[in-house]
């Protein structure tokens, strides 16, 4: 007797991002098993990320190295300089990378942290004489700027510009003392109202070392590796006092701390954490912002040997966590939290994005071996990348019965001649059945762009609805889609899966 086709309509599939933590059988179909090079777009759809539009044309000074840091310096007079570091040099500019390393200043590492403070930019790296830049004097060492040798204790690893001062921590011999500068004078760490605080006796766990500093909600947040100390009253550092402590949660990389307005995000040894949530809940699981990819992320962190990188983009509603060792970017969508308190997450694998920075205009700079690029377009320096989606296991409501896939009908927005490869597997098999089709040709025109005003325009994004026949059977079905992104945006609006439910197996 013929059985009716059952339909699972995956509307806005994977709009809750990847979930590799829950059982595939129990998962909501709004999760994804795989969402590579994807973001959640403004319509809540899974879409291909934008690419790296390299703007550097002369990277001679960078050599074969990649950009380790990017920083936008600007002062109250409107002067602006993009600094970057790499090849053991301090570089400036974006199109042409110019070596501005002070003379007779030898650098053998590129783990700088750069902050703007009071019309100056300050460069700190452990064991190195700090550098200070202002528009009048250019880049100078503290020794030159202050007219005297810099005390080794101030050759710090971490720097924070907040509360009218610079706060630094982590020198060659100590990781528990925070030094703060004189008021509004980032060069002066002696005299005036400068000072220091040794937090060695303040760690809630008894011992830790300072990894990062942050200012949030009028608090000075001191991140240890496994604990956090929150100081209030840091506008008068000599009198600041502990407001809260968190034990068991710390930060493992100072470059992962990002203030997203209402929260501080940072990378802990067990994933991405949110300080606001941590302070509120004081409970680890609930505050795990990377709860849905926790095991995967921890596995990647175990391989981490070089500094991570991160950027917060309110324009794109995402926080990017880069793990250069793994050539992997985790993209956390910050529009809202899921029920378990985590953010929606997608992955950008196989990318060589080594550093990020966001300027005042909202542009995201990307540092690679090619120099500095912008998060723009839909290719990585004229190279394509793969947008991939795989659904969790679909049981059609009854995992005990055999399913025979009949059709998969994705609704795809954009693509412009992209070849779409649909895939489906049964019972978690690694061998997938695939079917390919090509979406139509359409170059969308946007208001104000040349295609709209001068040459050509279309009515909008191309929407493709292609129904593909499927074969095979199994009790659990996974469907997927992948395509090569090469110049055009593409997003997955919907995926309708039709199956015939058979006998009990």
């Amino acid at each position, binding site marked *: 007797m013929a059985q009716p086709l059952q339909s699972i309509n995956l509307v806005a599939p994977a709009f809750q991002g990847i979930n590799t933590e829950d059982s595939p059988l129990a998962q909501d179909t709004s999760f994804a098993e795989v969402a590579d090079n994807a973001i959640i777009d403004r319509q809540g759809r899974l879409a291909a990320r934008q690419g790296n539009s390299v703007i550097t044309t002369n990277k001679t000074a960078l050599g074969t190295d990649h950009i380790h840091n990017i920083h936008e310096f600007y002062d109250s007079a409107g002067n602006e300089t993009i600094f970057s570091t790499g090849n053991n040099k301090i570089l400036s500019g974006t199109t042409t990378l110019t070596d501005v390393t002070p003379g007779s200043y030898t650098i053998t590492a590129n783990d700088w942290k750069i902050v703007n403070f009071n019309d100056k930019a300050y460069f700190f790296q452990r064991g190195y004489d700090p550098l200070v830049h202002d528009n009048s004097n250019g880049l100078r060492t503290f020794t030159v700027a202050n007219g005297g040798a810099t005390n080794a204790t101030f050759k710090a690893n971490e720097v924070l510009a907040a509360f009218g001062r610079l706060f630094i921590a982590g020198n060659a011999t100590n990781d*528990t*003392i925070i030094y703060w500068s*004189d008021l509004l004078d980032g060069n002066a760490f*002696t*005299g*005036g*109202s*400068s*000072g*220091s*605080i*040794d*937090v*060695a*006796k*303040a760690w809630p766990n008894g011992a830790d070392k300072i990894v990062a500093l942050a200012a949030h909600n009028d608090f000075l947040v001191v991140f240890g590796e496994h604990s956090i*100390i929150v*100081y209030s009253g840091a506008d008068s*550092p*000599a*009198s*600041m*006092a*502990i407001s809260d*402590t968190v034990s068991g949660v710390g930060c493992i990389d100072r470059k992962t701390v990002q203030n997203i307005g209402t929260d501080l995000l940072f990378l802990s040894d067990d994933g991405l954490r949110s300080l606001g949530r941590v302070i509120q809940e004081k409970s680890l699981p609930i505050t795990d912002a990377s709860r849905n990819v926790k095991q995967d992320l921890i596995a990647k962190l175990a391989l981490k040997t070089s500094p991570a990188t991160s950027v917060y983009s309110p324009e794109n509603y995402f926080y990017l966590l880069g793990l250069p060792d793994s050539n992997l970017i985790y993209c956390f969508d910050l529009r809202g939290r899921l029920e378990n308190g985590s953010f929606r997450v997608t992955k950008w694998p196989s990318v060589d994005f080594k550093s990020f920075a966001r300027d005042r205009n909202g542009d995201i700079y990307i540092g690679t071996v090619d120099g500095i690029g912008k998060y723009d377009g839909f290719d990585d320096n004229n190279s394509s990348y793969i947008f991939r989606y795989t659904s969790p296991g679909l049981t059609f409501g009854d995992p005990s019965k055999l399913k025979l896939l009949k059709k998969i009908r994705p609704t795809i927005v954009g693509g412009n001649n992209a070849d779409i490869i649909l895939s489906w597997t049964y019972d978690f098999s690694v061998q997938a059945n695939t079917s390919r089709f090509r979406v139509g040709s359409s170059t969308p025109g946007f208001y104000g762009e040349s295609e709209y005003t001068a040459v050509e325009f279309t009515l909008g994004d191309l929407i493709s609805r292609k129904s593909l026949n499927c074969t095979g059977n199994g009790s659990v079905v996974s469907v997927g889609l992948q395509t090569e992104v090469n110049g055009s945006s593409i997003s997955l609006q919907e995926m309708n899966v039709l199956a015939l439910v058979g006998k009990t197996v």
Partner: protein
Amino acid sequence: MGILSGLLGGVAKDLYGGIPQEVKGIYTDELTQLTSPDITFQPFTVTGSTGSQTGITRDPVTGQLSTQFTLDPTELALQDDLLAQSQSMLTGAVGDRSEREQEIYDTIRATQLGEEERQRLALEERLASQGRLGVQTAMFGGTPEQLALAQAQEEAQARASLAAIEQARAEQMQQAGLSQQFLEQAYTPQAAMLSALSPALNIASLEDVARRQQGEFDYQTQLANLQGAIGQSQGLADLYAGMFTGAGGLLSGLTAAVPGTLDAVANIKNAFFPS
């Protein structure tokens, strides 16, 4: 010699032989020697109610008078104590104050150290709870609270130091006063003893006056007695002088009438007044 001379000589011899021994004694007995009464100062000793004694003695050899003040042993011991105390106080009053100042300072600080330690520990706990134990500042050294506590402690030390100086100075003043007081009190038994001497001196003076008056009286009595005896002897002598004058006149007449009378008279004289 003639008959007349013999006669005169016999008469004279009879006369002389008939003179009473008392008349003879006037000329032959030794005169009564008046003895001056002893009206010299008589040493004496005054014994006070507490047993102290003031004695005035005369050196038996030189005759020099001397006064001995002898306190009762209890009073003497008290006097010694007071003098010793006075000496001790005086030594303290004029001595170096620095050691005493340090002692007073240490005493004051000892009373403060406990509270200061409690405050320090409380601040330490507060700073620890606030995670601020390791604060070092260019402005304050440590935290503002630590500076305030240190300032308070320094001020307490300064006040203690000043108080110690003032107290040591006051003590020296007090010691000077006490030294004076002890010194005065040390001589109180002696003063009492001397006070007891005053009435005794009056009494002794009365006695002395009486004794001198008595001596004078005795002397005058003796003198009067002597003068009376002398008067008696004078009367007796006058009597016998008259008798001899009559006899002489008779003899003179005889002499003129009888040669050799003078020789007889001379014999009479020799008979009376043998050489």
